[in-house]
């Protein structure tokens, strides 16, 4: 011990400048590492945008033209007209917005009941909701398809759900099975638990009914966590692929993710148009993320803390 201490003391004057340069070196290496990683993650996005604006003749040029001088919107125009991306975009927007609104309503009501109301079987039912969240969604895929297919009185079905296609290939079929995320209920319940009970008591004294307390007193205080739920729900719905793939059959019901894969498989791949379609499919969630990144980060952090 003593000898070691002596050694370091003796070498201290020699050591110091070395340490300082190595310190700078560490910082430089850190920035280079972060910069290279960031660039390699951005390149796919950059290349997508560049390709989508290049004239057809430059896309296959070797060596590739990086900065084109003649930007063109022809690929976007073709994606919207010949590729039907306007329909796909509209479908995705309807499905995502409605799913998100329903999710907000349904999960906040339930989260409030799990957090603030006192009733029998409350803990048990909450466990059920969490268990459903933990389930790999895939296990329900095939039977859910069949249940949607036998929806009574829909798509030519009789009251027993026989004879037609039910809610396959329809907006309700795309939307309703996606409603009710256990994660959102969990998130909202945790937030409601932090609010003081005096708020509800004050509401009750003023003669508010239970729904009024929830709607007029509690919900306005929950805007940040509602924003997290809305953003996650919209993003999940917009990016969902397997469920739409399974139940959509006609071109007019395709979501934008389905449109992309269809376009990629049907034609000899027209990279300009495909990249334009991909850019269109990317814009909504990326814009939402950039505008509200604080909420996204909070949501992720909350999932992490849970573990």
């Amino acid at each position, binding site marked *: 011990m003593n000898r070691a201490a002596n050694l370091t003391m003796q070498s201290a004057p020699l050591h110091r400048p070395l340490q300082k340069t190595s310190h700078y070196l560490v910082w430089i290496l*850190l*920035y280079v*590492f*972060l910069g290279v990683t*960031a660039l390699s*993650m*951005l*390149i*796919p996005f950059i290349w997508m945008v560049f*390709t989508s604006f290049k004239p057809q003749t430059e*896309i296959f040029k*070797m060596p*590739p033209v990086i900065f084109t001088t003649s930007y063109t919107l022809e690929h976007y125009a073709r994606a919207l007209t010949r590729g039907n991306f306007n329909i796909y975009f509209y479908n995705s927007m309807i499905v995502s917005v409605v799913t998100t609104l329903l999710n907000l309503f*349904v999960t906040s009501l*339930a989260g*409030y*009941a799990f957090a603030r*109301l*006192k*009733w*029998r*079987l409350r*803990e048990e*039912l909450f466990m059920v909701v969490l268990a*459903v969240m933990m*389930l*790999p969604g895939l*296990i*329900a895929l*095939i*039977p*859910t*398809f*069949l*249940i*949607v297919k036998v929806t009574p009185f829909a798509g030519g079905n009789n009251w027993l759900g026989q004879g037609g296609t039910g809610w396959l290939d329809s907006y309700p079929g795309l939307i*309703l*099975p996606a*409603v*009710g995320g256990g994660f959102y209920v969990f998130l909202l319940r945790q937030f409601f638990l932090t609010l003081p009970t005096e708020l509800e008591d004050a509401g*009750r004294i003023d003669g508010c009914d239970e*729904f009024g307390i929830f709607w007029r007193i509690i919900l306005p205080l929950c805007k940040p966590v509602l924003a997290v739920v809305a953003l996650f729900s919209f993003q999940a719905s917009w990016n969902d*692929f*397997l469920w739409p*793939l*399974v139940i959509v059959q006609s071109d007019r019901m395709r979501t934008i993710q389905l449109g*992309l*894969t269809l376009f*990629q498989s049907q034609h000899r791949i027209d990279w300009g148009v495909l990249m334009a379609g*991909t850019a269109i499919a*990317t814009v909504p969630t*990326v814009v*939402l*993320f950039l505008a509200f*990144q604080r909420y996204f980060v909070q949501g*992720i*952090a909350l999932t*992490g*803390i849970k*573990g």
Partner: protein
Amino acid sequence: MAVQNSISQQKSSPTWRRRRYGLTRQEKTAILFVLPLMIPLMIYWIIPSLSSLYYSFTNYSVVMATKWVGLNNFTRMWADNLFWRSLKNSAYFTVGNIPLVMVFGLILAVAVNARIRFRNFFRVVFYLPLVTSTIAISMVWLWLLDPNFGLLNVGLKIIGVHPQLWLQSTKQAMPSIIMMSVGVGVGGTMLIYLAGLQGIPESLYEAAKVDGANNWQTFWFITIPMLMPVTVYVLVTSIIGSFQIFGPIYAMTDGGPAFATTTIVHQIYINGFRYFNMGYGASQSWVLFLLLLGLSITNMRLMTRGMEVA
């Protein structure tokens, strides 16, 4: 518990007076509040999950009458080379993907947790692929990995490496998909680790400094052990997620070339919705479910045992 609570509350407040059918006012409200969630959950999740077990023992297909076939689906699966192939491919993807995502995610978290400039910019960039749809990213990578005109082969040419086949080669297809998935998933792991890092009390680091620990020692003996719960969470959720990879597989290779990338979920999709062997597909999804259930439990046990020894 809940019952006891409500009884003790009864005395203090008139809200808790029992009405007809033995329900308090709050209980009635609670039922109304929970129903909009429970109805879709019941119809589209709970009932299907349970009935999927029933379908595993039938030959259900949309077109023909359903017949109980006992264990036929499972014996068929045992002899199905493609099923075993898909299990192997899913395991390959998982084993290739997770260590990279976790190690890289931790390194990035430590890096962006340091007091650096443009910290927020880096966080945003690293997380960006996660808000983008996997299908969109798959499309871009399909273009980047194109053997003739893709940017990756152009880059290789510059440094003097022969162009590669990437997704069109049985050997390189899965590594290509893993490479893409690591780039996508690493931002999420980073953010979760970042939350974990910020939860470590500063006093531990101060104590280590007093004891004369260097940066490496602090990292190994304080940061890593303190992040253990986060690591377990990331590991469990990533295994469950990785075993269910489907989007990129469907969009980029459709299981090919020569079944080199067909995964379990891809097989379930093919059997259920391309061949309409829904009973068989359901039985495969139950096997996947049991597999993941077992994995998560063993995984948790292993990790907690490891912590006790340390």
